[in-house]
């Protein structure tokens, strides 16, 4: 499973981070970092929730 992050769409709102703080972090510089761009299958539900939480549609699942 791979998370895709569209930086052109991302507004650094941090909704993903609120859902899955182990996978996403908005730094002090306002840039979103994927802490684990390829999380293991067991986290699929969590990743899907984080993707759905993004108000700007900047996140998607590559596979």
């Amino acid at each position, binding site marked *: 499973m791979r998370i895709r992050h569209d930086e052109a769409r991302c507004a*650094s709102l941090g909704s993903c981070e609120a859902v899955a703080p182990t996978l996403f972090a908005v730094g002090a510089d306002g840039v979103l970092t994927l802490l684990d761009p390829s999380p293991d299958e067991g986290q699929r539900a969590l990743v899907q929730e984080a993707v759905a939480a993004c108000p700007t549609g900047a996140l998607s699942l590559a596979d």
Partner: protein
Amino acid sequence: MTAAPSRLDRPYDPADLSSQSFWSGTAADREHVFAELRRHRPVSWHPPVESTLFDDPDDRGFWAVVRHADLVEVTKRHEDFLSGEGIVFDSMPKELLDAGQGFIALDPPRHTKIRRLLASAFTPRQVARINDRIVANARRVVDGIAEKGEADFVAEVAALVPLHNVCDMVGVPEEHRLTILHEAELVGGWRDAEVMHGQEPLPRLLQATVTMLGIAMELTAQRRADPQDDLLTALVQAEVDGERLTDAEIASFFNLLMIAGTDTTRQSTSHGMKALTDFPDQRDWLTGDLPARMPSAVEEVVRWATPIMTFRRTAAHDCELGGQQVTAGDKVVMFYASANWDTEVFSHPERLDLSRSPNPHVSFGGGGIHHCLGNQLARRQLAATFTELLTRLPDIGVVGEPTYSSGTFFHGVNAMTVRFTPEGR
């Protein structure tokens, strides 16, 4: 094939979205017009909005976007529909726009860089960290009315909670707060005689920008000399493309934070209090389990209030929108209350339903790069304020009719009396 008519000879839609009387009427009256457009002519061309402030001879009119789906589409097509030409519906002199719009009227790449300077302070994680402060501000404000039994809810509650919270975050000391509140109010309220106290709008608005600039520059100088842990210091110390922000940019961003931070949640809080008075069944449902039900109630209050009624974009190039051929340079105006009342998305939008789920309202935006930076702050403030009110003043209710303000931008409430059994009696 004939070319689509240009701005100069395009026929205007018969529905009125442009007159002063339309924007001085009630939200319910406006909804009748929006409902007809949503059903029959979802993207329609209208004459320029009537204005006593500023006459722009080049303004030929605007496209009205009234459906939820189309509003979301315009918001997300930020390369087709630009913000850098201005984001307010009304035509205004450039000096006013430059002073107040801040980074909301920027496009990428600069928008992205400026927004990131502030973004980390507004994430859910960070706002959760300052929740104690937000609750304390709500408590302090309710303390101010709790023993009185009657109050002007707008001035004494709804305006104050967001004022103190945003000023705490930005770093504005107490002595400037009420001045900022009154100056910021004019930006959306200049069409309203009550807000303006009979003063001429244009000179008064220009005076407001001078006052706000003075405060911004005073505080900026203080932060340069003595940095603090606040957003103004972050702006003062920021480098974008290797350069510091100019004083004019810092002042403009400061004004945006003050206007967006004070005037939006104020309206949502006021409309929310009125709705809780008008829908006692919903209020009973909410108070039946306040902590568990508050999150969905807050979403519905924000939909119900739709504190910002319009934002504008400008077409970057010729393109299609909702079956219409839009020409480069055309103004495109999104009508948020209409989208929040779209029956394709919301069943019985005219009913306050505090348990509504899902609730994909567009009050914080349609999901593009300009999505409301302060959405988490707004949600926490509304939750804190209504928790405090409904717990401590359980019979609080609006008496009489509020006075609503005229204008095309904020869905404003000027004054609204509430009564309640004083606390401790």
